């Protein structure tokens, strides 16, 4: 099977700092890949480099046979990427409705149907539809952020730490939603919450000091306490 997303030895800088120094990973259609690593390893930078927010200085990023390495963010994401950043990335001074509408690349029937599906999936958003996004709770903001990424016909979702700062009950809800998505979407998930990463992910990549150092099946990592301790700095109970 051809990979949907392929990063081949990708490097990138933030200012003078060489953050990614050779990240390589492949994601096949329909699978959920989790990117793990210690704080500051380059996980978020990897996602931001994929969509061009941080330009790749070296290496190649191929999405569905299209080289997006040198594309500006607006072109890269229009190849079919939904990006859900760590800080939700919603527009505080727009309403929930406008946040969803502004995310649509085309305001056609298919997009509006997807919007309706999102509102059914997240009833909280339906209730707050006309409210300003800044008035939403953390969980609602996360739902809006996820919903916004799904209003377009995308090929892959990149999600950056969706459980960060959320109450356990909301984390469970987000996890369930991601598990639902797994049915028909391809996911790249950056996650510090190891339990959630293991619940959602099929395969994993570990990034350390800007390089991919290990990959494999999530199930194996979950069982291998030594690997966890060596690469992630903790051991699951």
């Amino acid at each position: 099977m051809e990979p949907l997303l392929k990063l081949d030895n990708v490097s990138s800088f933030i200012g003078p700092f060489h953050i990614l120094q050779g990240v390589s990973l492949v994601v096949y259609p329909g699978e959920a890949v989790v990117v793990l690593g210690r704080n500051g390893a380059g996980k978020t930078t990897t996602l931001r480099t994929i969509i061009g927010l941080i330009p790749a200085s070296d290496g190649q990023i191929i999405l569905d046979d299209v080289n997006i390495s040198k594309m500006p963010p607006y072109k890269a994401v229009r190849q079919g990427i939904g990006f859900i950043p760590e800080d939700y990335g919603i527009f505080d001074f727009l309403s929930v409705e406008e946040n969803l509408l502004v995310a649509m690349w085309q305001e056609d029937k298919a997009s509006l149907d997807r919007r309706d599906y999102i509102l059914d999936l997240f009833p909280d958003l339906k209730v707050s539809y006309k409210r300003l996004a800044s008035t939403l709770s953390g969980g609602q903001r996360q739902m809006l952020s996820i919903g916004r990424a799904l209003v377009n016909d995308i090929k892959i979702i990149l999600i950056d730490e969706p459980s960060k700062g959320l109450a356990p009950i909301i984390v469970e809800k987000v996890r369930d939603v991601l598990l639902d998505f797994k049915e028909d979407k391809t996911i790249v998930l950056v996650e510090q919450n190891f339990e959630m990463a293991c619940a959602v992910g099929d395969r994993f990549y570990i990034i350390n000091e800007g390089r991919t150092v290990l990959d494999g099946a999530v199930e194996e990592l979950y069982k291998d306490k030594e690997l966890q301790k060596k690469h992630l700095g903790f051991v699951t109970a």
Partner: protein
Amino acid sequence: MSYISNLMHNRPAIKPGLWILIVLTAAVLLVIPPLSSLTTITLLSRIFILAIFGMSYDILRGYTGIINLGHALFFGGGTYLAGIMFSRMGPTLDVLLLAVAITLAFSAVIAYIMGQFAFRGTGFIGVIACAMITLAFGEIARHTAETLREYTQGADGLTFRVPVIFQDRVMMYYYAFLFMIIMTLILRRFVNSPTGRVMQAIRDNEQRAKFLGYDTKKYKLIALIVAGMASSLAGIMFALLTRFANTELLTVQNTLNALLYTIVGGTGTLYGAIIGTAFVQLAQNYLLELRGIHEIFSRWLLFFGAIYVLVVLYLPKGFVGAYLQFQAKRQSRKKPA
């Protein structure tokens, strides 16, 4: 706070009560000319025209988050182009139509070029660079107008005649009023369109708009071109009203006047520019008249500055913003969130 911001920044919701007030105000404005002096009629005509200049600035600052310090070049450019064409080709309606077409094309092209230079950076440095580059464009326009004395009469200013139908002050009042209404409706439609929504997203956070798949530079260019064209049309109307153009119209001070109208009226409200322009023009006029009463009012700018400081201190969201805030508080009391 949320509802206020929504009203302030998204679509100013016009309540039925406000509609009645708007219609009554419009009715009063329509019957003012037969009952007022020519000075009052001219002052009100000026307010109608300058309100669109203010609104065009609100498109940039209030709806897209762009600081343009050279915005007066569109307004002054419109006045100068119309004036030069009237003085060279004659004050006819055909020439006016030609002037409108040329001015719109001129402002669109200049806005495009200005934007290509000004919108290169992002973030805080991008905002500063944009302000400096647009300031430079404005200064180039002012200097050009001063240098091309053969066409503009330099610092002396250019006096010209206008088509006969615009020579009557009362008729000009109605034209200016109609111009303000039509332009307000057009600009309102623009800011509430999908393009307007993207502009507001850029104002909130440009990087977020980028990763949603928007070429933010393109949308900022659209905002600048639309604002430039609206401003230049206001400039033509100003030419028809004053029959005079001087380089003051192109200065950064004139751009700051537009900024003042929007701040006093309420940034990001569109209609705020009408209230802000009326307040600023009426206050200036009143203070100027007071010069005859006491010598101290010859320093009227000091008093005007004090009024401005008070407005900013006590009505930081401007008059329309304060009204919307009051309305929001009333609603939240009725219907707690």
